């Protein structure tokens, strides 16, 4: 296995990450912007192209690996985190990325997602959330709002949606962030921190599906002035608005409410806070309830990484018992000899 094929990687550009495959998303799909952002961001990481692997499930979003000139696998619906777990734990030398959709990650693959996050396997999960099933042509998804009218819910959907950020925090994720497809700079900031994070990094990316759920995130996508975006910056007071006049503060019960920016109790963001309560409270801040939507890094803590722990056990076992000797293993336990007659 190549250690790190570092072969003059420094000169790579976005172009090197394009493949010869025709990109087949609908015109105007938010996936294009995410692809472009990633292609220009990857060279910056200084990781050799051959040491980068994208693994996806099924859905429009999941076509992503075909367009990234790295190693890649377009697998089966919902299972990418499980597959990536096997790869990441056996190949610590690789930079492994999972690309998934809201249906892929939160419906059929929900179980794999939460378990990968609690284990803290060393890979990055990018969830392209368009709040709809794109590839199957427009049924509601686990992030669609209650009452969503789609082809499969002509009178409106009946199930309460997941909040992906809350879910990830509840699943013990060590890194949780949110970005917007059209906000290249903001997305790159979050991705850079995700890439630097050792362990599972979960990033929800608001992604517009102009065909089946257009304008779902207009309030933040088209929000260049920051009227609705609450950009989370570690160590800084959480304020937003055209004049940065709005802010967040914490109630005594731990929940968060909006307040004026000059309020004495304005919350200072701490992504590395020892308990998950603050990040969780922030994840409950929504456009509908607070008049703003947090983006950036909600949580970023260090915790032992599953793959490292496993490698350490292997090392310890070898240190204690010596490198495995197959003949000795077969002959272990009670043996007896049968002689030649």
């Amino acid at each position, binding site marked *: 296995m190549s250690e790190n*094929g570092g072969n003059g990687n420094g000169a790579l550009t976005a172009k090197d990450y394009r493949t010869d495959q025709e990109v087949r998303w609908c015109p105007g799909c938010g996936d294009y912007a995410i692809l472009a952002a990633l292609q220009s961001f990857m060279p910056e990481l200084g990781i050799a192209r051959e040491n980068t692997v994208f693994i996806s499930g099924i859905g429009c979003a999941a076509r992503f690996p075909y367009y990234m000139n790295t*190693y890649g696998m377009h*697998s*089966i619906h919902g299972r990418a985190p499980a597959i990536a777990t096997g790869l990441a*734990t056996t190949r610590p030398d690789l930079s492994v990325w999972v690309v998934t959709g809201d249906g892929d990650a939160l419906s059929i693959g929900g*179980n794999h997602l939460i378990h990968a996050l609690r284990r803290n396997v060393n890979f990055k999960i990018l969830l392209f959330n368009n709040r709809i099933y794109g590839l199957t042509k427009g049924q509601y998804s686990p992030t669609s709002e209650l009452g969503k009218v789609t082809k499969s819910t002509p009178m409106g959907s009946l199930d309460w949606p997941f909040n992906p950020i809350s879910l990830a925090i509840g699943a013990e994720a060590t890194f949780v962030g949110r970005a917007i497809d059209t906000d290249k700079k903001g997305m790159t900031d979050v991705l850079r921190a995700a890439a630097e994070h050792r362990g599972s990094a979960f990033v929800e990316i608001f992604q517009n599906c102009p065909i089946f759920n257009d304008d779902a995130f207009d309030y933040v996508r088209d929000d260049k002035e920051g009227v609705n975006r609450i950009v989370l910056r570690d160590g800084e007071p959480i304020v937003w608005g055209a004049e940065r006049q709005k802010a967040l503060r914490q109630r005594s019960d731990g929940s968060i409410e909006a307040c004026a920016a000059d309020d004495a109790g304005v919350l200072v963001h701490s992504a590395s806070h020892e308990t998950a309560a603050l990040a969780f409270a922030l994840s409950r801040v929504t456009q509908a309830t607070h008049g703003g939507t947090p983006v950036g890094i909600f949580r970023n803590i260090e915790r032992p990484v599953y793959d490292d722990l496993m490698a350490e056990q292997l090392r310890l076992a070898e240190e204690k018992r010596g490198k495995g000797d197959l003949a000795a293993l077969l*002959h272990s336990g009670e043996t007896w000899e049968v002689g030649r007659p």
Partner: protein
Amino acid sequence: MSSKPVEQLSQVIVRFAGDSGDGMQLTGSQFTSEAALLGNDISTLPDFPAEIRAPAGSLPGVSGFQLHFADHDILTPGDAPNVLVAMNPAALKTNIGDLPRGGTLIVDADAFTERNLQKAGYAQNPLEDGSLDEYQVHAVPLTSLTVGALKEVEGVTPREAERSKNMFSLGLMSWLYGRSIKPSIEFLEEKFGATRLEIAAANIKAIRAGYAFGETTESFAVTYEVRPAKLAPGTYRNITGNQALSLGLVAASRLSGLPLFLGAYPITPASAILEELAGYKEFGVRTFQAEDEIAAAGAAVGAAFGGALGVTTSAGPGIVLKAETVGLAIMLELPLVICDIQRAGPSTGMPTKPEQGDLLMVMYGRNSESPVPVVAARSPSDCFHAAIEAVRIALKYRTPVYLLSDAYLANGSEPWLLPELDTLPDLTPTFATEPNAGDEFLPYLRDEQTLARPWALPGTPGLEHRIGGLEKADRTGNISYDPENHDLMTRLRAQKVAGIAGDIPELDVDDPGGDAKLLVLSWGGTFGPVAAAARRVRANGKHVAHAHLRHINPFPRNTGDVLRRYEKVLIPEMNLGQLLQLVRSQFLVDAIGYNRVRGFPLRAAELQDAIESLEETL
């Protein structure tokens, strides 16, 4: 040595039966060790309930362990016991039906209390009502003798003393069959010596007391001797199927030079493989206890993509869940070994009992045209070699491979002639390291002979490529919806698997006389009883041929020729005729099935009857 007369026997089948909490599995496996070390050939069949602790004394709580030991090579744990050790009325009730008339019955007389009799559904005490007159009954107060013997052992409660009665019975049985109790004593010293010295002391004392009791009691007039068997020379150890399968996977990892990655989710009777392999970390073995069977299989595929030996283990209900992932591995053309330790079904079925009901599932239980090679182990120790063979095919042909075992092979044990390492195959795969078409790398450009595609590992510069479940264009591996391409790729995948027939041994027929008209065809765990039945038939002066399939997909290349050489073909299976269907449809041979799904292995005697009555019609 005993002072009583010694009678020679060529073989004995003993069954220990008691409450789940009575330690029958331990008693049985210790008696097995004693027999193995004495040089007998052995074959064992543990039989335990799925419930960890069903109510004490109840019928569903009975746990059993059958051991067949002999002075010649044997093939099965035996149909029916010659000796039944029953620790309580429930154990007697559930097992007495298997003891032939005249058989030896040893019971713990102390356990035949009003309450226990009632729990077992006895209106009267069978020890007193004459219902056991046809057997040689030894009603021994095992519990009180044990408690009496352990009175002086310090730090042992009366309750703990009582629990040593299984070791008392082990001592008694060891005396009866002239076995040394030394290995059991050493075992107990090792097991409890470090942590609970007094428990070790109590159990050792109980074994000694049982042994001495045999010597002094008038209840037993003779002892028996079963001489060592003439087995092939070499070093042996006693091994269960799950242990052998685990060791086979570790060996295959060494033989291929690939680190072993096992993805698994606990399920009876496959869990022991996960547990066993978790202990081999110094061999670079990574075990991943996944959140479910789908993740377990998926992680193994991911590991295989990265160049590890990806394996996943389960039983029926979990194998069903893996089907979609196996389909992905077919499309990705990556090596993957899926071990199905079959148990009685459908659904949860009878988790601890064997069946061969999954054959058609592993053959066909996937969407579309999705052929997978199938290898089946035939005995507990054969699981070692079958595992290596499954890995060999997976690596060489870049394909998922099903390895079939079952609950009987998994938990049953037999002596295993340890292989010399240099007789095992070299499984080293070749990885793609450079472009294979000018300066391009085509991930689906096949090897002309095997039709396998190149395996290029992430980390290899210049060979970056994408694979996935969508149909691939021939050679390039790009997404393709071209109709002719799909037809071609479907045929190529089928041809690749079919071509393995040229790379496996021909089907061998055992027909010592050479003039049999009837062929019995077996696969998997029915090898033992079928071979034993064939021996019996021949001992009666009749003729029968026996062939056994290790590879079920593809079949050995001469299978059709072999089948057509015989007037009749009989296929015994622990299912309702699954190999039978495959054989009939592939070879147009009008084979006959012998099918039983009772949750225990087929019996040699019933197969002998089936063979002989069919033979008479020819």
